[in-house]
Every structure is written in C-alpha cells, then in structure tokens.
C-alpha cells in the first residue's frame, strides 16, 4: 500500500468570467498521506474551496480544470469518465459542506437520503441499506429514529452530523470537509470537529479540512497547507507551522489569531487579496509582504523543500 493517498500535481483551475479569466488555482501540487488530516487554509478567494471541488470534479459551469493531475490511490481522477467519477464520489471521497441546512434536500427524510446514497453505490437490499443508515447515524451520535426526520426538524449540529453520516457511511478513503463548522455555534463546532477526528481514526480515512481559520486547522490537522491568491505558499506539519511559520503570509495569519490568555497584540495583514483576473507580477503576495525585495516583483519563487515534510514558496529561503 502506498503511503500517499492523494497526489495533486501542477493543478490549474480557471474560471471564465465576463471580466476575464480568473486563475483560481494556479499550478498547485500537494500530496496527502493516508490517515492524515490536512488543513487547507486561506482567505476567501484564495482558491482553497475551488481546489476541494476540483478533486471531486464538481466545479461551477464556468470553472475548468486546465491542466494537472489528481491521483487518488494510483488512479488519475481527471482521466475518469463521468460515470466512473460518479462511483468515486460518495464512495471513495465523501464531502461535508459548510451549510448543512441548504446541503440536504429539504423535502426528503434524512434516512431516505442516506439510503439513496448507499443504494447508488452498493448492491444490497433496501432493508439492509436502512440498517446501514441507522448504524451510520449512531456512529455520528444521533439516535436511529432520526432517520424519519426532515432536515428542518433537526438542529444545526444534528444536521451537520447527518451530513457527516452521509459522507462516511460508505467508508470513503478521503473526506473533504468545506468549512464544516463555520455555520455552527461555537460549542457545537468543537463537538463536530471531535467527531470528524474520531471517525478518521475509526475508518482509517484522510481528511482535507478546508477552513479560513488557521487556529482550527492547527488544533485538528496533522499538516497545514496555506493558500493565497490561487497559489500554495507553504505546506508543513501543524506544530512546525505554528511554532515557526516560514512564509511571511503564514506569519501574518498566525499573528492575527486572537489569543485570550496571552493578550498579545493582534496584527492584521495590511491590504487586500489581489484581483485574480490581473494578479500581481512575481510573487502574488509581494504587494502586502513586509519583507518584499525587488526580486519578488519580477519573478515567481519556486516551491522550496526545507526538509522531508516542509515546503515553502518564498525568495527568503532560496
């Protein structure tokens, strides 16, 4: 068995809009190991969600995967036919969305939605599928009688548990969770993350945790990938990235975490993310970077390997 579960190589995803081409994901490479939680961190518009949806090939109509490879367990997902891809979705890759209320069909009982998913992928009887769905609900900490509930009858946290049950019922190799706790209360947030982490142990899956909150990623993820303006700028184990961030942008992100106990000064990163139709020349972060040198404006830095697990894209380390 390979150690690497998912390998993204030189992926480019462009949106064709009325104003021009938006390079939402530009030449991103990333490898995710088995049983690993990777936090994909960035501001909105950094391309982190686009990357997540590109993996399951569910981009909006204007979005196109221009080039690159997405290899899951040895098979390039971009080479699959649509029907082969459908077999991957839900079965090998489960997805958890930001807003569980709008992501569940409001007119169908949650049990039926789970059963429908099971029957799409596995050839078993309806009765067996129901038993499986009930078990899945119990695993996410909901009583099996919730199968008969409609989404609107559940609380936000319960709904997200249903979403997680839907994503994990077929024991996928990879779970992509797009801001899974953003729409929830703070207390519920923690429980949901706890649940995701425990399921990961139980099912031996990997998780891509897409979030704008680097502290959440630091707390839960094994590794953190920092994206900015469509580029991947730093990729490293969480503890290392928190204790010693290398890229100036990562440093900025960490300094902007509010810390209740330390009462340290919160520093915001000055300026705004760039317009991706006309991105800045050279390193895309240079207009906001406190350490920018003349070279940063001219030439894009290459990804630099610091050690076996640590990568950064910045001229400071070249």
């Amino acid at each position, binding site marked *: 068995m390979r150690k690497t579960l998912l390998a993204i190589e030189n992926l480019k995803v462009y949106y064709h809009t009325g104003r021009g081409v938006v390079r939402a994901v530009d030449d991103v490479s990333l490898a995710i190991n088995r049983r690993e939680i990777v936090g994909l961190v960035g501001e909105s518009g950094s391309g982190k969600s686009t990357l997540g949806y590109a993996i*399951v090939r*569910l981009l909006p109509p204007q979005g196109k995967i221009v080039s690159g490879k997405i290899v899951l367990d040895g098979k390039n997902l971009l080479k699959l036919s649509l029907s082969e891809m*459908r*077999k*991957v*979705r*839900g*079965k090998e890759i489960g*997805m958890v*969305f930001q*807003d569980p209320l*709008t*992501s*569940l*069909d*409001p*007119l*169908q009982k949650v049990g039926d939605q789970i059963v*429908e*998913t099971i029957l*799409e*992928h596995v050839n078993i009887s309806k009765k067996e599928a129901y038993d499986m769905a009930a078990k899945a609900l119990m695993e996410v900490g909901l009583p099996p009688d919730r199968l008969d509930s*409609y989404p*609107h*009858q559940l609380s936000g946290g319960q709904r997200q548990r249903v*979403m997680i049950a*839907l994503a994990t019922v077929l024991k996928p190799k990879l779970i992509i969770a797009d801001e899974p706790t953003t729409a929830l209360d703070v207390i519920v947030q923690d429980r949901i993350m706890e649940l995701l982490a425990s399921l990961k142990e139980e099912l031996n899956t990997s998780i891509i945790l897409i979030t704008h909150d680097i502290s959440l990623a630091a707390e839960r993820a094994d590794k953190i990938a920092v994206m900015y303006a469509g580029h991947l700028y730093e990729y490293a184990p969480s503890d290392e990235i928190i204790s010693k961030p290398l890229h100036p942008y990562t440093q900025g992100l960490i300094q902007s975490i509010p810390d209740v106990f330390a009462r340290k000064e919160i520093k915001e990163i000055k300026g705004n993310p760039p317009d991706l139709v006309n991105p800045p020349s050279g390193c895309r972060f240079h207009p906001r970077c406190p350490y920018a040198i003349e070279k940063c404006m001219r030439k894009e830095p290459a990804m630099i390997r610091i050690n076996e697990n640590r990568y950064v894209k910045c001229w400071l380390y070249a």
Partner: protein
Amino acid sequence: MAALRTYIIVRTLMTIPIVFTLLTIVFIILRVMPGDPITAMVGMKAPPEYIERLKEEAGLNKPYHVQYVNYILGIIRGDFGRSLIWGKRPVLAEILDHLPATIELTIFGFIVSIIIGLITGTVAGVKCYTKVDTTLRLYSIIAYALFIPWLGMMFQLIFGVYLKILPIGGRIDPGLTVGWNTVTGLYVLDGIITGRYDIVLNALQHLILPSLTLGIVLSGAYTRLVRANMIDVLSQDFIRAARARGLSELKVLRHALKNAFIPILTMMGLQFAILLTGAVLTETTFSWPGMGTFLLERIKYVDYTTIQGTIVFFAIFVSVVNLVVDILYALIDPRIRY
C-alpha cells in the same frame, strides 16, 4: 400532525372573509353598479311592464340593504334562487347539471398543460441560456398569446374539416348515451365504471381537440414557471451535495424537480382561475355543454337569477379550489407545517 390540523383549520377559516368579499363584489357588480342589468340584457325596446315583472321576480325592486341580506342568507342556505325561465328550476340543480362537463374538460386540459409545461420547463431550466432555452421561452410566450377560440378553430379546420378524423364539437355522440345512466357526470370515468368502453372511447375522441386547445394555451405559463424554479433549484447547495454523493444525473434531476414543483403547486390555485376563463372560451368554440356555455346562454335569455347564481358559484368554487391547493401544499411540503 396536530400542527397540520391547526394549519388546515386556520386556512379554512381564512377562506370565509374571501368568499364573503367575493360575494359582495358580485352583488355590487350585478345590482349596485350604474346600469340596470335587466334592461341592459332585455334591451331598451322591451315593454316597461315586462321589465318590471322580471325585476320583481328577481327581487330587484327592494332597497339595496334588503336585497343584500336576502342574497347572502340565500347563499348561506345553499339556495341560489330559481331560474326565471325553464320552469323555474333551482339554479343550483342546473349548475350541477353542467358542472361535470366543465370539470372533465378542465382536468384533461390541465393534464395536457402540465405535461407540456413540465417537459419544456425542465429542459429550458437545465439548458438555461442556450439556444434551446431561448426557443422554449419563445414557445411559452407564443402559447400564452394564442387566442383559445382561434387555436380551437385551427384544430377544427385541420382535424375536423380537412382530415375528418376527429369530432369538432360536443361531448359525445348523442345516440350513445340513450338509456345510459351517468354516475358522476364525467363521461370517461362513468364509462369505465359502467363498463361502456365504447362511451369511453367516444368521449375521449371528443375531448382531444378541446383539451389540447386549452392545454397548449395554458402550458406557456407552466413552461415559464418550471424553468424559473428549475434554474433556482439547480443552483442550490443540495443539488451539488447530491452530486457529491455520487447520485446519477437522473436522480439529481428528481431531487430538483420535486423541489421545483412546490412553488408551482401554489401557483396552481391562481392558474385554476385562468383555467376556468380558458374553459369558457373553449366550451364556446367546441359547443361543449359546460358552465361557460350555460352562463352565456342564460345571459342571452336574460335569466338574471341564474346568471347571478352561476357567477356566485364560480366565486365559491375558485375559493374552495384555492383552499384545497393550499392544504395539498402543506401536505407535500413538510416545512409548512409549523
């Protein structure tokens, strides 16, 4: 379930002021508005004594408030008055004679329109902003702009006069129904119940052109509605989530259709009024012995009480259909049952 029951009760109670308002509007139009219905209908040249006699029979020579109270009380008792002609038959009995024909036509017209509307609307919604979509949008506008009698006559010309393959008027060949007792008054249904399949076939043949006419004209509205709802629903999160679960496009479409259908159902109540308007014109074009033909005939013969009764009946009928549609809506959409 208790919540659903409460909703149904509250919604039913809400119908009462609406019906009451409608009855008042009908009263104002028929009695208070300038212009004297009897004179207008009989014509100025009729002898004054005759006009007076008609007015008295219809109770029109009393003060307005007395007329109004009598009118409302009568309707509450289910008494729609008696016809001024044709042996003073109760108006309600005459209405009920003609109602099944209209209902049968309306049902078939509705089926045609919903089938065309659902197919064209779904295709336009899925293919939105393509050439297919533009074509279907044009179709919906032209269908809406078609004048029912004209479309009906074109069908009569083609299928009845030139090709001679379909009857151009009436509900059934008269000879067939001799000695046949109807059950509901809906010929197709009754034919099946009594095992008279020759009647079923003949009634269906008579139904084809009128219901196509009515259905095509009304389908335009459904095309628009289904299209708009499909575009809206297809952009929602749960559709993407359904795809992310690996569901086939057909199953995804099923989720979309079900959700797109809910707002359409609320529109059906209002559409029903349009359906009835259409039915009046369709009936006239195809000599269909329903409520529309009946109303027009009585207007011609100045049967004042019957005219009033029929219009009142339409008002109540429409309100009740709206009520039923709203309750159906609550039964289908679990979110409504607050």
